[in-house]
């Protein structure tokens, strides 16, 4: 895992949930298996301190269920102020999958045919959830990680995260002026970051795809060279055949290099950018929830003012309740925002460093192989 969540989340590396503790770094989503019409992920985790291992098969629906459960609890004040770890998009039915469709659905995560990148994203999600101070305490985690039978499929309870229909009102709400300067600024900056990060991710997708195409084209080049080599009698033709084979070897080196570079781009830089991008979307949703609460509060205040004396007490209660809720949300939100800022920087730091190191390594390796070939080729040249 390139991005080490446990390093980032210094607040709660191991969570205690009434006896059920998980070691964050042990959480793994190791592979995606295609069963019938859907994808099954193998999820592993280790308990702390008992070191008991758990392995379960989970479908995407199970993850969705988990996410919704996390949003449910009413008892926690200000839950709506939490920036929820983002879940990757649902994988599409993979019968008629073309790379185009995958990318449209999953963004960057759709670039990898083997689902490796996607698994890594799911893994990060789980780690982030488990290490969250508040979320990590949720009981559902226990059943998610230990129960053999997947919990998913329970009819979609609409969590507070669902904001599927952007009705006109909602858009208006989104732009509602904020009372607090901190939040005003944050909303503006978040809005632009969401846009920019998403754009950057998309452009990285284009780069990676082109690199994959180049690797393919190199493969064709090499194969064609090979096919052209036949048994040769005369010396000039033999020389030419040798040259063809030599060139073919070189092209394979280029191909492998591109495959490696593309993979690094995807699984390190891409994954990091994708996470940051989705996190920013998650923040946007949280801010929206808070804004909605603000609108509600302001509405209640107005109602209170307009209320007839008989109803005034009632209105006052309602107003006070929503004021309190709003305050809770804002407090939590503030903390979450600061945490997110920090996390963002750390994600970038880790992933840019790791990415750079890997690319550097790839370049050095390729360079040394090419040098060897060049030397050998020159010697061949001088002996002829």
């Amino acid at each position, binding site marked *: 895992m390139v991005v080490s969540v446990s390093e980032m989340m210094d607040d709660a590396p191991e969570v205690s949930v009434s006896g059920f503790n998980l070691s964050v770094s042990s959480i793994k989503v190791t592979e995606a298996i295609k069963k019938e019409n859907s994808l099954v992920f193998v999820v592993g985790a280790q308990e702390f301190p008992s070191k008991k291992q758990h392995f379960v098969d989970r479908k995407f629906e199970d993850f969705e269920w988990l996410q919704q459960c996390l949003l449910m609890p009413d008892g926690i004040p200000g839950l709506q102020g939490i920036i929820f770890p983002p879940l990757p998009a649902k994988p599409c039915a993979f019968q008629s999958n073309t790379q185009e469709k995958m990318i449209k659905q999953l963004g960057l995560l759709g670039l990898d045919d083997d689902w490796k990148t996607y698994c890594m994203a799911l893994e990060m999600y789980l780690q982030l959830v488990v290490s969250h101070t508040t979320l990590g305490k949720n009981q559902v985690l226990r059943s998610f990680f230990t129960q053999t039978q997947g919990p998913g499929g329970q009819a979609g309870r609409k969590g507070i995260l669902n904001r599927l229909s952007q009705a006109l009102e909602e858009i208006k709400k989104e732009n509602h002026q904020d009372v607090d300067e901190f939040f005003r600024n944050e909303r503006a900056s978040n809005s*632009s970051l969401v846009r920019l990060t998403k754009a*950057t991710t998309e452009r990285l997708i284009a780069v990676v795809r082109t690199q994959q195409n*180049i690797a393919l084209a190199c493969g064709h080049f090499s194969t064609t060279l090979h096919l*052209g080599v036949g048994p040769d009698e005369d010396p000039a*033709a033999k020389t030419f055949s040798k040259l063809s084979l030599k060139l073919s070897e070189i092209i394979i080196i280029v191909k492998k290099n591109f495959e490696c570079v593309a993979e690094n781009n995807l699984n390190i830089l891409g994954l990091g950018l994708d996470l940051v991008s989705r996190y920013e979307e998650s923040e946007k949703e949280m801010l929206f929830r808070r804004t909605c609460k603000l609108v509600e509060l302001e509405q209640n205040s107005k109602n209170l003012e307009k209320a007839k004396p008989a109803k005034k007490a009632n209105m006052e209660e309602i107003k006070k309740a929503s004021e309190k809720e709003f305050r809770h949300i804002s407090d939590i939100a503030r903390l979450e925002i600061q945490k997110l800022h920090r996390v963002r920087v750390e994600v970038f*730091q880790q992933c*840019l460093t790791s990415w*750079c190191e890997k690319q550097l390594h790839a370049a050095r390796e390729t360079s040394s192989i090419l040098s060897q070939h060049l030397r050998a080729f020159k010697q061949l040249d001088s002996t002829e």
Partner: protein
Amino acid sequence: MATSSERSPPPFPESEDQEPDPDPADGDSDEGEDIFTGNSKPAEIKAERHQPPVDVTAKLQRDIPSSDPLGDLDGSGANKKPARDGRQADLFTEPRSDIFSEEAAARPARPGPASGSNANSSSKSNGIHSDEEQDIFAEATVELSLDSPHSERKETPKPVTSTESSVAVQPSAPKTALKTMAELEEEESEDKFELNISITNPEKVGDGMNAYMAYQVSTQTSLPMFRSKSFTVKRRFSDFLGLYEKLSEKHAQNGYIVPPPPEKSILGMTKVKVGKEDPSSAEFVERRRAALERYLQRVVAHPSLLQDPDVREFLERDELPRAVNTQALSGAGFLKMINRATDAVSKMTIKMNESDIWFEEKLQEVESEDQQLRKLHGVVESLVNHRKDLSINTAVFAKSVAMLGSSEDNTALSRALSQLAEVEDRMEQLHQEQASSDFFVFAELLADYIRLLGGVRGCFDQRMKTWQRWQDAQVTLQKKRENEARLLWANKPDKLQQAKEEIAEWENKVTQYEADFERISTTVRKEVLRFEKEKARDFKNQIMKYLESLLHSQQQLIKYWEAFLPEAKAIA
């Protein structure tokens, strides 16, 4: 390619027409080229006598018989066959005027030097001919259709007094000649026989649809046959096509592989004419410039062609008369020409009693090679396009990252992102260069060879034609004999005399055509071998270049990553 040519020492005095004039092809007749200058130092091309070109020994072929004022030129191939000598005498005497008239007739475009040049061309080119009585007069022959006077002349094998006495002038390593082809200005070898050609400075001349690109053709040489050591002229594309046409007319029929010129491109040129200043027209001009350069380098690397005065004129003369009738040489036209030739050949192949299986096999090889090269070319082009895409995508990505960086509050992260944007920008440049390299190193090379193979097929075709002519002559001879028999029987003595004369004439022709056929067969063989060697050489050099450029790219990348790493680590 020069290496493989077999050249035999120039025939001696009696041979030929050593036209004493200085090569008028240079355009300035007043240059008064010293007769001997041309002669004394043969073009460095080494000639080998007869042997299949394996090793080139620097044999000088020209011996300048002191008695022969014209010295050099003739070298028309060491003509070994004694049988020829007799004929030579005839030929030598008559042709002068003949050549001139023909030349004059044939080359209306070049009035001035015409007379001289032709003569010269014939003489000059000889030095480097293969011992087969490759005949220099071939150049003088203007018409493609060989009719007797011409053929006779062609026949003239300059007696090769084979003096192998090579006046070894300089042992230019074969490598030099080859390298001249592959590398541009590279070699400053101590080698004296150097000829470097470079084409630079494409400039648009004129406006609108009459505009054209003028290219500067610079030559640096130590060859004595040129007026000076380094000179530059301006040429336009149609001049190159004109040169090809002239060379093709003169030499193709003898079985030489005349390198084909780059293709015409109406779209490309129209953009340039119209004055569109965009990267694609700049790319087109650069592509054409490079193609023209390679074309000229191949021409001068061919030992026989180098001796052709037209080539010299092309390189040296300040103003060339505008080449007309270059229509035939547009890409499509050229291909059509080749295809027609190939069709004709395939029709003949069935009938030809191929005594030498080598030719049949070679032709097969050429066909399959053509297919392979075309496939490779397609694959390489697709690779080049992807690289170009990568370059574009990387640039766009870099911009995005830059914007992200400038929106970022955290200073260290902001700086790191800006640095990343810069790294990506530099990578875009690298990708662009690599795409260019792929293109020029391979795609263009493959395209060149596909065209060259057309030339190879052409020379096989010429051989077929020669064979056919021989066969036809035999048939005619037979008819004449039958006619004679009939006349004898019918007892018509008056007509008999004529019949006998005709028989004699046709007997001569048959012998001559047979010899032609032998000669062209040998030439074709040699040319093909030379071509293959050259091809292997070319590809090897290009692969080397490619490897070097790949390595360079990776090393640049390493630098960029190494510079970026500390920035990434510093994010806090």
